[in-house]
């Protein structure tokens, strides 16, 4: 198996509404990534696109429509889609293009244009439910998260204050990020606890907003990596796992699919004690409790321990195990698939020391990124290692 390195990354602004079309967003992110490693379109062998529901952009087979912005004209091009897990799954798909020996340099682009959907991007989420047992009840997506949050809080007896700390941490972490949508230096736990209740226990400031945005990543094979960097950042482990469609048949307090995906990635990366060997992590945090949920899923702490670590400041940027140093989805924004920018591009920037104000002070060697998708089903995990 060939080793695969990350050599460039790019990201656009994340906002609730952007002027650019989906094609233009893909182009902007790709351009930044290509400038980063100084390659041109002709150097790219293949392109992988990750993009979440077609319903947002309003184009069926939207992968085909976006391909020119993603530098894929007259090239092998494929689109992968795993719901919310696409942000980390698209780089995994890029990984197997290179690791199999079929391509040398692959561009991975993730784009999302949620604002095109009217009246509100949430309406596209009405169609993720099972048509017989769920949809006739007209559920709202927030209800699903509220039910999972409630189960998680009840099983481990967690207080809302500890969960609110995550939102505060991430929104403050996002202050150093030029693309951030909701960075807020002054937010406090009380602000979060006093925000309006959407569906108890979820409150307004617990949720990440819908956003437009795109991000891009360029990966290449072992032989070519040395041309781009003396100290390449390797994709060391990948894993993905999906649970059953029947979400009402599962106990939602623990994401076992994330644990399975993490075990697959750690095995490939030869990590035996995740808590000790991993320096920092970017778990998927569309809601604040999700970061805790996924920290446990990633086996970075015991079940129920994540809120304690948050309370003790272990997960702050200068703590022992920094979590979401980019600001995560809560701080930077949530354009579903384009969250690759926070989950994988950030790992690359942190490991190469390029994260500027967001840089973790200890010298990180290994980082883990994770995304989650579908109806509480999909876990995708990627491990990046330096040198």
């Amino acid at each position: 198996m060939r080793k695969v390195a990350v050599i460039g990354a790019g990201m656009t602004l994340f906002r609730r509404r952007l002027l650019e079309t989906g094609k233009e967003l893909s182009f902007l992110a790709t351009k930044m990534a290509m400038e980063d490693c100084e390659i041109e379109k002709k150097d790219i062998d293949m392109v992988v696109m990750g993009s979440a529901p077609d319903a947002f952009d309003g184009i069926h087979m939207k992968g085909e429509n976006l391909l020119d912005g993603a530098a894929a004209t007259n090239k092998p091009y494929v689109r992968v889609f795993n719901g919310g897990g696409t942000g980390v799954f698209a780089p995994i798909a890029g990984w197997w293009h290179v690791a199999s020996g079929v391509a040398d340099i692959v561009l991975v682009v993730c784009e999302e244009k949620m604002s095109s959907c009217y009246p509100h991007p949430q309406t596209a989420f009405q169609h993720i439910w099972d048509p017989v047992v769920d949809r006739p009840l007209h559920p709202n997506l927030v209800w699903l998260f509220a039910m999972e949050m409630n189960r998680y809080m009840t099983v481990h007896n967690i207080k809302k204050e500890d969960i609110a700390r995550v939102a505060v941490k991430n929104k403050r972490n996002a202050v150093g990020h030029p693309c951030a949508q909701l960075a807020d230096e002054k937010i406090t736990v009380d602000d979060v606890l006093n925000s309006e209740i959407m569906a108890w226990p979820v409150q307004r400031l617990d949720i990440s907003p819908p956003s437009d945005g795109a991000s891009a990543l360029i990966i290449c094979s072992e032989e070519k990596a040395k041309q781009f960097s003396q100290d390449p950042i390797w994709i060391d482990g990948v894993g993905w796992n999906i649970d059953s469609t029947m979400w009402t048949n599962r106990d939602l307090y623990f994401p076992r699919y994330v644990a399975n995906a993490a075990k697959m990635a750690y095995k490939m990366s030869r990590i035996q004690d995740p808590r000790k060997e991993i320096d920092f992590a970017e778990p998927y945090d569309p809601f604040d409790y999700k970061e805790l949920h996924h920290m446990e899923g990633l086996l970075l702490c015991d079940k129920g321990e994540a809120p304690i670590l948050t309370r003790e400041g272990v997960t702050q940027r200068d703590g022992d195990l920094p979590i979401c140093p980019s600001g995560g989805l809560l701080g930077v924004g949530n354009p579903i698939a384009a969250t690759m920018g926070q989950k994988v591009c950030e790992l690359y920037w942190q490991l190469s020391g390029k994260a500027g104000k967001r840089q973790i002070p200890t010298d990180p060697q290994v980082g883990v990124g994770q995304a989650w998708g579908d109806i509480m089903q999909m876990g995708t995990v990627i491990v990046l290692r330096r040198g």
Partner: protein
Amino acid sequence: MTRKVAIVGIGHTNFNSITPDVSWKEFMFEACQRAYMDAGINPRMDVDSFITCAEDFYEGFSIFDEFVPDQIGATLRPCCTVCGDGLYGIGNAYMQIMTGQFDIVAVEAHSKISDAVTSGDIILHAYDPLFEKPISGPVERQKYIGNPSYAIESPKPLVGKTNEKSRIHPYFLAGLEMQYYLTKTGTTEEQCAMTVVKNKKNAFKNPYAKYEANVSIDDVMGSEYLFKPLKKLDISPNVDGAVALVLASDEVAKKLDVEPIWLKGFGWSSESPWLSSRSMDADYATMASNMAYKMANIENPKKEIDIAEIDDRFSYKELQHLEALGLAKEGEAAKLLENGSLDLKGSLPINSSGGSLGIGNCFEATGLQKALEIVTQLRGHAGKRQVSDVEIGIAQSWRGIPTKSGAVAIFGR
């Protein structure tokens, strides 16, 4: 030592125009169950990775990936969705196996297009929102009139002026392409009609094909013009079907005691989504096949390929793809058709299964159906339609209107 990848299991359901007795779940279960039995494996323990090829809007869900794992055996296993034709799934499965981390990968694709009442409008939804959709008709939804069978089987004919009060059927694009192809190569409509005759006749020998018919060239020429020069019988009708394939590395194939059919090469390519600035040739097929031929070490495809399954959603497409794949010189595909070289008993049988014209257009499952046919032929299990002395076969598919993307896979014994 480089690994090789083999097809060790195939399974499919019947192809029917409607399937009211099963939901998509049971449909996929049937195809996958058959493929696993064929390979002699237990998906819950032996299969390392699962790939589904599906597009949301064809299925009717915002995230179809959610509804996939249970019926293909992928609960709590690695499973993903590739938005593409079945052959893209095969390509990705190949790459997964070649990384060395996975030994057995299952690929599944299906079409349950009968569930989509307004399939023409769904295809229209793939057009560019700024440049192509607004010319297709009014931007507001029309109140749906006409019963479902009309919507699925017969697109609204477009000859002469458009009626601004309703939307055009998206297949007008195929009509434009056909006009271009006929003019450029000098092929006639009668020659395209011969493709229909050949494929529908071949379908008689295929037990799972449902659109077999003994039509003559006059029948085809006499069918009504829907998108001139595209006639009703030139268009393959919609059909439901599910196909699953199991791929394995060579070490595992040996252990399974199944005769392996090797995936010698594959390729895929996309041109451009801009209707206005792309060619109307099938360059995607040329680029994809070049990639595949290189991987399979094929230098002279015309001599080395024994059998081919080529995308023939529209009759002229078979001829166009034949030339793009290098199996016929430009403009000569029609001649080969006329002198019988492309028949079952000819020198290069094309679409022995009946193709999409004989089986039906099964959308994302088309590529896997073509792969299914080639693998069946190479195994010698094709019954009445078996072609003798086949060693290397090629399966090619296109992603459909309005894309210019396609994939190619080459199989060998």
